[in-house]
Protein backbone atom coordinates (compact mmCIF):
# COMPACT_ATOMS: atom_id res chain seq x y z
CA UNK A 1 0.00 0.00 0.00
CA UNK A 2 2.81 2.41 0.76
CA UNK A 3 4.40 2.37 -2.69
CA UNK A 4 1.03 2.77 -4.39
CA UNK A 5 1.09 6.44 -3.41
CA UNK A 6 4.67 6.86 -4.59
CA UNK A 7 4.84 5.15 -7.94
CA UNK A 8 1.84 6.49 -9.80
CA UNK A 9 -0.49 3.64 -10.59
CA UNK A 10 -2.12 4.88 -13.77
CA UNK A 11 -4.28 1.78 -14.08
CA UNK A 12 -6.38 3.21 -11.23
CA UNK A 13 -7.67 5.77 -13.73
CA UNK A 14 -8.78 3.13 -16.25
CA UNK A 15 -12.35 3.51 -17.45
CA UNK A 16 -13.29 -0.13 -16.77
CA UNK A 17 -14.45 -1.18 -13.27
CA UNK A 18 -11.12 -2.07 -11.64
CA UNK A 19 -10.09 1.50 -12.44
CA UNK A 20 -12.07 4.53 -11.30
CA UNK A 21 -11.95 6.65 -14.48
CA UNK A 22 -15.53 5.81 -15.43
CA UNK A 23 -16.78 6.79 -11.97
CA UNK A 24 -15.00 10.13 -12.19
CA UNK A 25 -16.37 10.88 -15.67
CA UNK A 26 -19.84 9.93 -14.50
CA UNK A 27 -19.43 12.35 -11.59
CA UNK A 28 -18.28 15.05 -14.02
CA UNK A 29 -21.44 14.55 -16.09
CA UNK A 30 -23.60 14.85 -12.95
CA UNK A 31 -21.71 18.01 -11.96
CA UNK A 32 -22.23 19.55 -15.40
CA UNK A 33 -25.92 18.62 -15.38
CA UNK A 34 -26.39 20.46 -12.08
CA UNK A 35 -24.25 23.39 -13.16
CA UNK A 36 -26.14 23.83 -16.44
CA UNK A 37 -29.54 23.34 -14.80
CA UNK A 38 -28.72 25.60 -11.85
CA UNK A 39 -27.24 28.27 -14.10
CA UNK A 40 -30.31 28.20 -16.35
CA UNK A 41 -32.66 28.46 -13.38
CA UNK A 42 -30.47 31.22 -11.96
CA UNK A 43 -30.66 33.15 -15.23
CA UNK A 44 -34.47 32.90 -15.23
CA UNK A 45 -34.64 34.06 -11.60
CA UNK A 46 -32.07 36.76 -12.33
CA UNK A 47 -33.94 38.09 -15.36
CA UNK A 48 -37.16 38.23 -13.38
CA UNK A 49 -35.36 39.74 -10.41
CA UNK A 50 -33.61 42.41 -12.48
CA UNK A 51 -36.85 43.40 -14.21
CA UNK A 52 -38.64 43.42 -10.86
CA UNK A 53 -35.93 45.55 -9.26
CA UNK A 54 -35.91 48.07 -12.10
CA UNK A 55 -39.58 48.30 -13.07
CA UNK A 56 -41.47 46.65 -10.19
CA UNK A 57 -43.45 48.33 -7.46
CA UNK A 58 -41.88 49.39 -4.16
CA UNK A 59 -42.90 46.20 -2.31
CA UNK A 60 -41.48 44.00 -5.07
CA UNK A 61 -38.23 45.94 -5.04
CA UNK A 62 -37.82 45.66 -1.27
CA UNK A 63 -38.55 41.94 -1.29
CA UNK A 64 -36.00 41.37 -4.07
CA UNK A 65 -33.46 43.41 -2.15
CA UNK A 66 -33.99 41.16 0.86
CA UNK A 67 -33.51 38.08 -1.37
CA UNK A 68 -30.28 39.25 -3.00
CA UNK A 69 -28.83 40.57 0.26
CA UNK A 70 -29.62 37.45 2.25
CA UNK A 71 -28.33 34.99 -0.33
CA UNK A 72 -25.14 36.95 -0.89
CA UNK A 73 -24.41 37.30 2.83
CA UNK A 74 -24.82 33.64 3.84
CA UNK A 75 -22.17 31.03 2.96
CA UNK A 76 -23.15 28.76 0.06
CA UNK A 77 -22.55 25.69 2.20
CA UNK A 78 -25.11 26.86 4.77
CA UNK A 79 -27.59 27.80 2.05
CA UNK A 80 -27.19 24.39 0.46
CA UNK A 81 -27.81 22.71 3.78
CA UNK A 82 -30.90 24.82 4.50
CA UNK A 83 -32.39 24.66 1.01
CA UNK A 84 -31.57 20.97 0.56
CA UNK A 85 -33.18 19.83 3.78
CA UNK A 86 -35.80 22.52 4.33
CA UNK A 87 -36.78 22.54 0.65
CA UNK A 88 -37.39 18.81 0.44
CA UNK A 89 -39.06 18.84 3.86
CA UNK A 90 -41.43 21.66 2.91
CA UNK A 91 -42.28 19.98 -0.38
CA UNK A 92 -43.02 16.73 1.42
CA UNK A 93 -45.27 18.45 3.95
CA UNK A 94 -47.02 20.36 1.19
CA UNK A 95 -47.74 17.24 -0.83
CA UNK A 96 -48.81 15.40 2.32
CA UNK A 97 -51.20 18.26 3.15
CA UNK A 98 -52.62 18.05 -0.36
CA UNK A 99 -53.08 14.32 0.07
CA UNK A 100 -50.44 13.07 -2.35
CA UNK A 101 -48.28 11.40 0.27
CA UNK A 102 -44.55 12.04 0.50
CA UNK A 103 -42.74 12.64 -2.76
CA UNK A 104 -39.26 11.38 -3.48
CA UNK A 105 -37.18 14.34 -4.64
CA UNK A 106 -34.21 13.33 -6.71
CA UNK A 107 -30.86 14.73 -5.69
CA UNK A 108 -30.46 16.17 -9.16
CA UNK A 109 -33.60 18.34 -8.89
CA UNK A 110 -32.69 19.44 -5.37
CA UNK A 111 -29.15 20.30 -6.49
CA UNK A 112 -30.37 22.31 -9.47
CA UNK A 113 -32.84 24.14 -7.23
CA UNK A 114 -30.18 25.02 -4.66
CA UNK A 115 -27.58 26.21 -7.17
CA UNK A 116 -30.31 28.07 -9.08
CA UNK A 117 -31.47 30.03 -6.02
CA UNK A 118 -27.89 31.04 -5.22
CA UNK A 119 -27.05 31.95 -8.82
CA UNK A 120 -30.35 33.85 -9.16
CA UNK A 121 -29.37 36.36 -6.49
CA UNK A 122 -26.02 37.11 -8.10
CA UNK A 123 -27.35 37.24 -11.66
CA UNK A 124 -30.11 39.64 -10.56
CA UNK A 125 -27.43 42.15 -9.66
CA UNK A 126 -25.37 41.50 -12.81
CA UNK A 127 -28.37 41.88 -15.14
CA UNK A 128 -29.71 44.91 -13.28
CA UNK A 129 -26.37 46.68 -13.65
CA UNK A 130 -26.18 45.73 -17.33
CA UNK A 131 -29.71 46.97 -18.09
CA UNK A 132 -29.02 50.20 -16.22
CA UNK A 133 -25.96 50.87 -18.35
CA UNK A 134 -28.04 51.11 -21.53
CA UNK A 135 -28.54 54.75 -22.38
CA UNK A 136 -32.26 55.51 -21.87
CA UNK A 137 -32.40 57.26 -25.25
CA UNK A 138 -32.14 53.90 -27.03
CA UNK A 139 -35.25 52.57 -25.31
CA UNK A 140 -37.07 55.88 -25.78
CA UNK A 141 -36.23 55.75 -29.48
CA UNK A 142 -37.75 52.27 -29.66
CA UNK A 143 -40.86 53.53 -27.91
CA UNK A 144 -41.05 56.50 -30.26
CA UNK A 145 -41.02 54.07 -33.19
CA UNK A 146 -44.12 52.45 -31.67
CA UNK A 147 -42.46 49.16 -30.66
CA UNK A 148 -44.34 46.96 -28.22
CA UNK A 149 -42.60 46.43 -24.83
CA UNK A 150 -41.70 42.82 -25.68
CA UNK A 151 -40.21 43.93 -28.98
CA UNK A 152 -38.19 46.62 -27.20
CA UNK A 153 -36.92 43.92 -24.83
CA UNK A 154 -35.95 41.54 -27.64
CA UNK A 155 -34.55 44.05 -30.13
CA UNK A 156 -33.02 46.74 -27.94
CA UNK A 157 -32.65 45.92 -24.26
CA UNK A 158 -31.19 42.42 -24.53
CA UNK A 159 -28.75 43.04 -27.39
CA UNK A 160 -27.60 46.32 -25.86
CA UNK A 161 -27.08 44.96 -22.37
CA UNK A 162 -25.32 41.70 -23.33
CA UNK A 163 -21.82 43.19 -23.76
CA UNK A 164 -22.09 44.66 -20.25
CA UNK A 165 -23.56 41.49 -18.76
CA UNK A 166 -21.24 38.86 -20.25
CA UNK A 167 -18.20 39.32 -17.97
CA UNK A 168 -20.41 39.00 -14.89
CA UNK A 169 -22.45 36.14 -16.32
CA UNK A 170 -19.33 34.20 -17.32
CA UNK A 171 -17.99 34.56 -13.78
CA UNK A 172 -21.30 33.22 -12.51
CA UNK A 173 -21.04 30.20 -14.83
CA UNK A 174 -17.59 29.40 -13.44
CA UNK A 175 -18.89 29.83 -9.89
CA UNK A 176 -21.79 27.48 -10.71
CA UNK A 177 -19.45 24.74 -11.95
CA UNK A 178 -17.36 25.04 -8.80
CA UNK A 179 -20.30 25.36 -6.40
CA UNK A 180 -21.53 21.94 -7.50
CA UNK A 181 -18.60 20.55 -5.49
CA UNK A 182 -20.33 21.76 -2.31
CA UNK A 183 -23.16 19.31 -2.92
CA UNK A 184 -20.64 16.60 -1.99
CA UNK A 185 -21.08 17.74 1.62
CA UNK A 186 -24.78 16.78 1.60
CA UNK A 187 -23.87 13.43 0.04
CA UNK A 188 -24.77 14.06 -3.59
CA UNK A 189 -22.56 11.97 -5.87
CA UNK A 190 -21.06 14.55 -8.20
CA UNK A 191 -17.41 14.77 -9.24
CA UNK A 192 -15.91 15.73 -5.87
CA UNK A 193 -17.88 13.06 -4.01
CA UNK A 194 -16.97 10.41 -6.61
CA UNK A 195 -13.34 11.46 -6.28
CA UNK A 196 -13.44 11.13 -2.54
CA UNK A 197 -14.95 7.67 -2.76
CA UNK A 198 -12.38 6.57 -5.34
CA UNK A 199 -9.54 8.03 -3.32
CA UNK A 200 -10.80 6.58 -0.08
CA UNK A 201 -11.10 3.04 -1.37
CA UNK A 202 -7.82 2.97 -3.29
CA UNK A 203 -5.79 5.18 -0.86
CA UNK A 204 -4.34 7.03 -3.87
CA UNK A 205 -5.58 10.40 -2.58
CA UNK A 206 -3.23 12.70 -4.45
CA UNK A 207 -3.69 10.95 -7.79
CA UNK A 208 -7.49 11.12 -7.70
CA UNK A 209 -7.81 14.65 -6.32
CA UNK A 210 -5.34 15.88 -8.94
CA UNK A 211 -7.27 14.03 -11.66
CA UNK A 212 -10.51 15.69 -10.54
CA UNK A 213 -8.71 19.04 -10.45
CA UNK A 214 -7.64 18.52 -14.05
CA UNK A 215 -11.26 17.77 -15.02
CA UNK A 216 -12.56 20.93 -13.31
CA UNK A 217 -9.75 22.95 -14.83
CA UNK A 218 -10.57 21.58 -18.29
CA UNK A 219 -14.20 22.66 -17.83
CA UNK A 220 -13.02 26.16 -16.84
CA UNK A 221 -10.56 26.51 -19.73
CA UNK A 222 -13.01 25.21 -22.34
CA UNK A 223 -15.68 27.53 -20.91
CA UNK A 224 -13.26 30.46 -21.21
CA UNK A 225 -12.72 29.73 -24.91
CA UNK A 226 -16.47 29.52 -25.58
CA UNK A 227 -17.19 32.65 -23.51
CA UNK A 228 -14.49 34.50 -25.45
CA UNK A 229 -16.20 33.59 -28.74
CA UNK A 230 -19.63 34.66 -27.42
CA UNK A 231 -18.16 37.87 -26.07
CA UNK A 232 -16.59 38.75 -29.42
CA UNK A 233 -19.86 38.07 -31.19
CA UNK A 234 -21.85 40.27 -28.78
CA UNK A 235 -19.34 43.09 -29.03
CA UNK A 236 -19.24 43.17 -32.81
CA UNK A 237 -19.86 46.65 -34.10
CA UNK A 238 -18.96 48.34 -30.82
CA UNK A 239 -16.40 51.06 -31.48
CA UNK A 240 -13.26 51.68 -29.51
CA UNK A 241 -12.33 48.12 -28.54
CA UNK A 242 -10.13 46.95 -31.33
CA UNK A 243 -8.02 44.54 -29.28
Amino acid sequence: MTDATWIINWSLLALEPPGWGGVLLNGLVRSLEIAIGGYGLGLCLGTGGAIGKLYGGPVMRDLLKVYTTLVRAVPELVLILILYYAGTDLLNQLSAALGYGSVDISGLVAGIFVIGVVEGAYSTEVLRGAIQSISPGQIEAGRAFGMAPTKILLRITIPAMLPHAIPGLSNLWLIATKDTALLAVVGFSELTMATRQAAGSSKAYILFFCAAGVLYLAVTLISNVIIGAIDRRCRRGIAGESA
Partner: protein
Amino acid sequence: MSEAAKSSNADNFFKPHRLCLIALALLLLGCVIGFMRWDWVPHYSGLIAYGLGVTLLVLFSTSILGFLLAVPIGLVQVTGPWPLKAVAQAFCTVIRGTPLLLQLWLIYYGLGSLFPQFPAIRHSFLWTYLRDGWPYGVAALAISFAAYEAEVMRGAFLGVPRGELEAARAFGMNPFTMFRRIWLPRALRRALPTLAGETVLQLKATPLIATITVVDLYAVILKIRQETFATYEPLLLLTLIYICLTAILVAAFRYLEHRIPTSGA
Protein backbone atom coordinates in the same frame (compact mmCIF):
# COMPACT_ATOMS: atom_id res chain seq x y z
CA MET B 1 -41.33 55.84 -14.48
CA SER B 2 -37.64 56.35 -13.81
CA GLU B 3 -38.26 59.81 -12.41
CA ALA B 4 -40.89 58.47 -10.07
CA ALA B 5 -38.41 55.84 -8.89
CA LYS B 6 -35.77 58.49 -8.34
CA SER B 7 -38.01 60.75 -6.32
CA SER B 8 -39.19 57.87 -4.14
CA ASN B 9 -35.56 56.84 -3.58
CA ALA B 10 -34.80 60.34 -2.40
CA ASP B 11 -37.51 60.08 0.26
CA ASN B 12 -36.68 58.84 3.70
CA PHE B 13 -36.30 55.14 4.48
CA PHE B 14 -39.62 54.66 6.25
CA LYS B 15 -42.51 54.53 3.82
CA PRO B 16 -45.93 52.98 4.45
CA HIS B 17 -45.18 49.73 2.60
CA ARG B 18 -41.81 49.41 4.37
CA LEU B 19 -43.51 49.81 7.74
CA CYS B 20 -45.90 47.02 6.76
CA LEU B 21 -43.02 44.80 5.65
CA ILE B 22 -41.09 45.50 8.85
CA ALA B 23 -44.19 44.69 10.91
CA LEU B 24 -44.59 41.47 8.94
CA ALA B 25 -40.93 40.58 9.51
CA LEU B 26 -41.26 41.28 13.24
CA LEU B 27 -44.37 39.10 13.35
CA LEU B 28 -42.47 36.32 11.61
CA LEU B 29 -39.57 36.78 14.04
CA GLY B 30 -42.03 36.60 16.94
CA CYS B 31 -43.45 33.34 15.59
CA VAL B 32 -39.93 31.96 15.14
CA ILE B 33 -38.99 32.86 18.71
CA GLY B 34 -42.34 31.86 20.21
CA PHE B 35 -43.15 28.64 18.42
CA MET B 36 -39.73 27.12 17.77
CA ARG B 37 -37.42 25.48 20.27
CA TRP B 38 -34.70 27.74 21.62
CA ASP B 39 -34.16 26.13 25.03
CA TRP B 40 -30.80 24.75 23.88
CA VAL B 41 -29.24 28.18 23.34
CA PRO B 42 -28.09 28.89 26.94
CA HIS B 43 -26.65 25.40 27.28
CA TYR B 44 -24.59 25.69 24.11
CA SER B 45 -23.74 29.40 24.26
CA GLY B 46 -20.13 28.72 25.33
CA LEU B 47 -19.60 26.29 22.48
CA ILE B 48 -21.15 28.73 19.99
CA ALA B 49 -18.83 31.49 21.21
CA TYR B 50 -15.85 29.13 20.81
CA GLY B 51 -16.91 28.25 17.26
CA LEU B 52 -17.39 31.91 16.41
CA GLY B 53 -13.89 32.60 17.72
CA VAL B 54 -12.40 29.84 15.55
CA THR B 55 -14.25 31.11 12.49
CA LEU B 56 -13.04 34.67 13.03
CA LEU B 57 -9.49 33.51 13.77
CA VAL B 58 -9.41 31.45 10.58
CA LEU B 59 -10.95 34.30 8.58
CA PHE B 60 -8.41 36.90 9.69
CA SER B 61 -5.33 34.67 9.71
CA THR B 62 -6.01 33.29 6.22
CA SER B 63 -6.92 36.71 4.83
CA ILE B 64 -3.70 38.25 6.15
CA LEU B 65 -1.53 35.29 5.11
CA GLY B 66 -3.21 35.16 1.71
CA PHE B 67 -2.77 38.89 1.22
CA LEU B 68 0.95 38.69 2.07
CA LEU B 69 1.25 35.96 -0.57
CA ALA B 70 -0.87 37.89 -3.07
CA VAL B 71 1.36 40.99 -3.16
CA PRO B 72 4.47 39.23 -4.56
CA ILE B 73 2.35 37.03 -6.87
CA GLY B 74 0.59 40.09 -8.25
CA LEU B 75 3.85 41.99 -8.54
CA VAL B 76 5.77 39.35 -10.51
CA GLN B 77 2.86 39.15 -12.93
CA VAL B 78 3.41 42.84 -13.68
CA THR B 79 7.20 43.18 -13.64
CA GLY B 80 8.71 39.75 -13.18
CA PRO B 81 10.93 37.84 -15.58
CA TRP B 82 8.89 35.57 -17.81
CA PRO B 83 9.41 32.24 -15.96
CA LEU B 84 8.16 33.74 -12.68
CA LYS B 85 5.33 35.46 -14.53
CA ALA B 86 4.28 32.16 -16.13
CA VAL B 87 4.41 30.33 -12.79
CA ALA B 88 2.32 33.04 -11.09
CA GLN B 89 -0.25 33.00 -13.87
CA ALA B 90 -0.45 29.20 -13.85
CA PHE B 91 -0.92 29.27 -10.06
CA CYS B 92 -3.80 31.75 -10.32
CA THR B 93 -5.47 29.83 -13.17
CA VAL B 94 -5.27 26.47 -11.42
CA ILE B 95 -6.48 27.70 -8.04
CA ARG B 96 -9.27 29.81 -9.50
CA GLY B 97 -10.31 27.06 -11.90
CA THR B 98 -10.86 24.30 -9.33
CA PRO B 99 -13.30 24.16 -6.40
CA LEU B 100 -11.94 25.15 -3.00
CA LEU B 101 -13.48 22.04 -1.45
CA LEU B 102 -11.41 19.86 -3.81
CA GLN B 103 -8.21 21.77 -2.95
CA LEU B 104 -8.99 21.45 0.74
CA TRP B 105 -9.53 17.71 0.49
CA LEU B 106 -6.44 17.30 -1.71
CA ILE B 107 -4.30 19.02 0.93
CA TYR B 108 -5.93 17.32 3.92
CA TYR B 109 -6.30 13.77 2.62
CA GLY B 110 -3.43 13.87 0.11
CA LEU B 111 -0.67 15.53 2.13
CA GLY B 112 -2.18 14.12 5.29
CA SER B 113 -1.65 10.62 3.93
CA LEU B 114 1.90 11.40 2.73
CA PHE B 115 3.30 13.02 5.86
CA PRO B 116 3.07 10.00 8.18
CA GLN B 117 5.32 8.08 5.79
CA PHE B 118 8.27 10.35 6.58
CA PRO B 119 9.79 9.33 9.91
CA ALA B 120 11.58 12.69 10.00
CA ILE B 121 8.26 14.56 10.05
CA ARG B 122 6.63 12.06 12.33
CA HIS B 123 9.27 12.52 14.99
CA SER B 124 9.63 16.28 14.67
CA PHE B 125 7.77 18.86 16.73
CA LEU B 126 5.64 19.63 13.64
CA TRP B 127 3.76 16.37 13.97
CA THR B 128 1.71 17.57 16.93
CA TYR B 129 0.26 20.23 14.61
CA LEU B 130 0.08 18.15 11.44
CA ARG B 131 -2.15 15.57 13.13
CA ASP B 132 -4.88 18.21 13.42
CA GLY B 133 -7.06 19.44 10.61
CA TRP B 134 -6.54 23.17 11.05
CA PRO B 135 -3.06 23.62 9.47
CA TYR B 136 -4.39 22.08 6.25
CA GLY B 137 -7.51 24.24 6.39
CA VAL B 138 -5.54 27.43 6.97
CA ALA B 139 -3.12 26.50 4.15
CA ALA B 140 -5.91 25.80 1.66
CA LEU B 141 -7.90 28.94 2.51
CA ALA B 142 -4.81 31.16 2.46
CA ILE B 143 -3.70 29.79 -0.93
CA SER B 144 -7.17 30.32 -2.35
CA PHE B 145 -7.38 33.88 -1.03
CA ALA B 146 -3.91 34.57 -2.43
CA ALA B 147 -4.88 33.43 -5.92
CA TYR B 148 -8.04 35.56 -6.08
CA GLU B 149 -6.41 38.58 -4.46
CA ALA B 150 -3.29 38.32 -6.67
CA GLU B 151 -5.45 39.04 -9.72
CA VAL B 152 -6.85 42.10 -7.95
CA MET B 153 -3.36 43.26 -6.97
CA ARG B 154 -2.08 42.71 -10.52
CA GLY B 155 -4.76 45.07 -11.81
CA ALA B 156 -4.05 47.53 -9.02
CA PHE B 157 -0.28 47.54 -9.69
CA LEU B 158 -0.94 48.08 -13.39
CA GLY B 159 -3.32 50.91 -12.60
CA VAL B 160 -0.75 53.09 -10.83
CA PRO B 161 0.19 55.86 -13.29
CA ARG B 162 3.60 55.39 -14.90
CA GLY B 163 4.49 59.02 -14.29
CA GLU B 164 4.44 58.61 -10.52
CA LEU B 165 6.85 55.70 -10.69
CA GLU B 166 9.09 57.63 -13.08
CA ALA B 167 9.03 60.61 -10.71
CA ALA B 168 10.12 58.35 -7.85
CA ARG B 169 12.94 56.99 -9.99
CA ALA B 170 13.94 60.51 -10.94
CA PHE B 171 14.19 61.37 -7.24
CA GLY B 172 16.79 58.62 -6.99
CA MET B 173 14.69 56.17 -4.98
CA ASN B 174 15.95 52.64 -5.26
CA PRO B 175 13.39 50.11 -6.49
CA PHE B 176 12.55 48.84 -3.02
CA THR B 177 11.92 52.31 -1.58
CA MET B 178 9.86 53.19 -4.63
CA PHE B 179 7.78 50.05 -4.14
CA ARG B 180 7.32 50.64 -0.44
CA ARG B 181 6.57 54.38 -0.60
CA ILE B 182 4.69 54.80 -3.87
CA TRP B 183 3.73 51.68 -5.77
CA LEU B 184 2.27 49.57 -2.96
CA PRO B 185 0.32 52.33 -1.15
CA ARG B 186 -1.18 53.59 -4.42
CA ALA B 187 -2.11 50.03 -5.46
CA LEU B 188 -3.61 49.23 -2.05
CA ARG B 189 -5.85 52.26 -2.29
CA ARG B 190 -7.15 50.97 -5.61
CA ALA B 191 -7.58 47.42 -4.33
CA LEU B 192 -9.44 48.36 -1.14
CA PRO B 193 -13.02 48.28 -2.51
CA THR B 194 -12.51 44.82 -4.04
CA LEU B 195 -10.71 43.68 -0.89
CA ALA B 196 -13.99 44.10 1.03
CA GLY B 197 -15.78 41.77 -1.38
CA GLU B 198 -12.96 39.23 -1.27
CA THR B 199 -12.99 39.21 2.54
CA VAL B 200 -16.73 38.54 2.56
CA LEU B 201 -16.14 35.68 0.10
CA GLN B 202 -13.42 34.37 2.42
CA LEU B 203 -15.85 34.47 5.36
CA LYS B 204 -18.27 32.46 3.27
CA ALA B 205 -15.54 29.92 2.50
CA THR B 206 -14.62 29.27 6.15
CA PRO B 207 -17.38 26.70 6.91
CA LEU B 208 -15.69 24.33 4.43
CA ILE B 209 -12.99 23.58 7.01
CA ALA B 210 -15.67 21.88 9.11
CA THR B 211 -15.45 19.03 6.55
CA ILE B 212 -11.88 18.31 7.68
CA THR B 213 -12.71 18.06 11.40
CA VAL B 214 -11.96 21.67 12.38
CA VAL B 215 -14.53 22.76 14.97
CA ASP B 216 -15.66 26.17 13.73
CA LEU B 217 -19.04 27.86 14.05
CA TYR B 218 -20.56 25.66 11.34
CA ALA B 219 -19.29 22.45 12.97
CA VAL B 220 -20.64 23.58 16.35
CA ILE B 221 -24.08 24.15 14.82
CA LEU B 222 -24.01 20.72 13.16
CA LYS B 223 -23.12 19.19 16.52
CA ILE B 224 -26.03 21.01 18.18
CA ARG B 225 -28.36 19.74 15.46
CA GLN B 226 -27.29 16.18 16.12
CA GLU B 227 -27.51 16.41 19.89
CA THR B 228 -30.77 18.32 20.32
CA PHE B 229 -32.69 16.99 17.29
CA ALA B 230 -33.68 20.60 16.59
CA THR B 231 -33.66 20.61 12.77
CA TYR B 232 -34.01 24.21 11.68
CA GLU B 233 -33.43 26.38 14.71
CA PRO B 234 -29.61 25.99 14.82
CA LEU B 235 -29.44 26.64 11.08
CA LEU B 236 -31.48 29.84 11.49
CA LEU B 237 -29.15 31.01 14.24
CA LEU B 238 -26.13 30.17 12.03
CA THR B 239 -27.61 32.18 9.16
CA LEU B 240 -28.27 35.13 11.44
CA ILE B 241 -24.69 35.10 12.76
CA TYR B 242 -23.19 34.98 9.25
CA ILE B 243 -25.45 37.86 8.12
CA CYS B 244 -24.30 39.94 11.10
CA LEU B 245 -20.64 39.12 10.41
CA THR B 246 -21.01 40.09 6.74
CA ALA B 247 -22.71 43.36 7.68
CA ILE B 248 -19.95 44.18 10.19
CA LEU B 249 -17.20 43.40 7.64
CA VAL B 250 -18.84 45.52 4.93
CA ALA B 251 -19.36 48.42 7.37
CA ALA B 252 -15.76 48.18 8.61
CA PHE B 253 -14.34 48.31 5.10
CA ARG B 254 -16.62 51.21 4.18
CA TYR B 255 -15.34 53.09 7.24
CA LEU B 256 -11.75 52.30 6.21
CA GLU B 257 -12.41 53.54 2.68
CA HIS B 258 -13.78 56.83 3.97
CA ARG B 259 -10.74 57.28 6.20
CA ILE B 260 -8.36 57.15 3.24
CA PRO B 261 -8.32 60.28 1.10
CA THR B 262 -9.01 59.28 -2.48
CA SER B 263 -8.44 62.48 -4.40
CA GLY B 264 -6.95 61.58 -7.77
CA ALA B 265 -6.69 57.89 -6.95
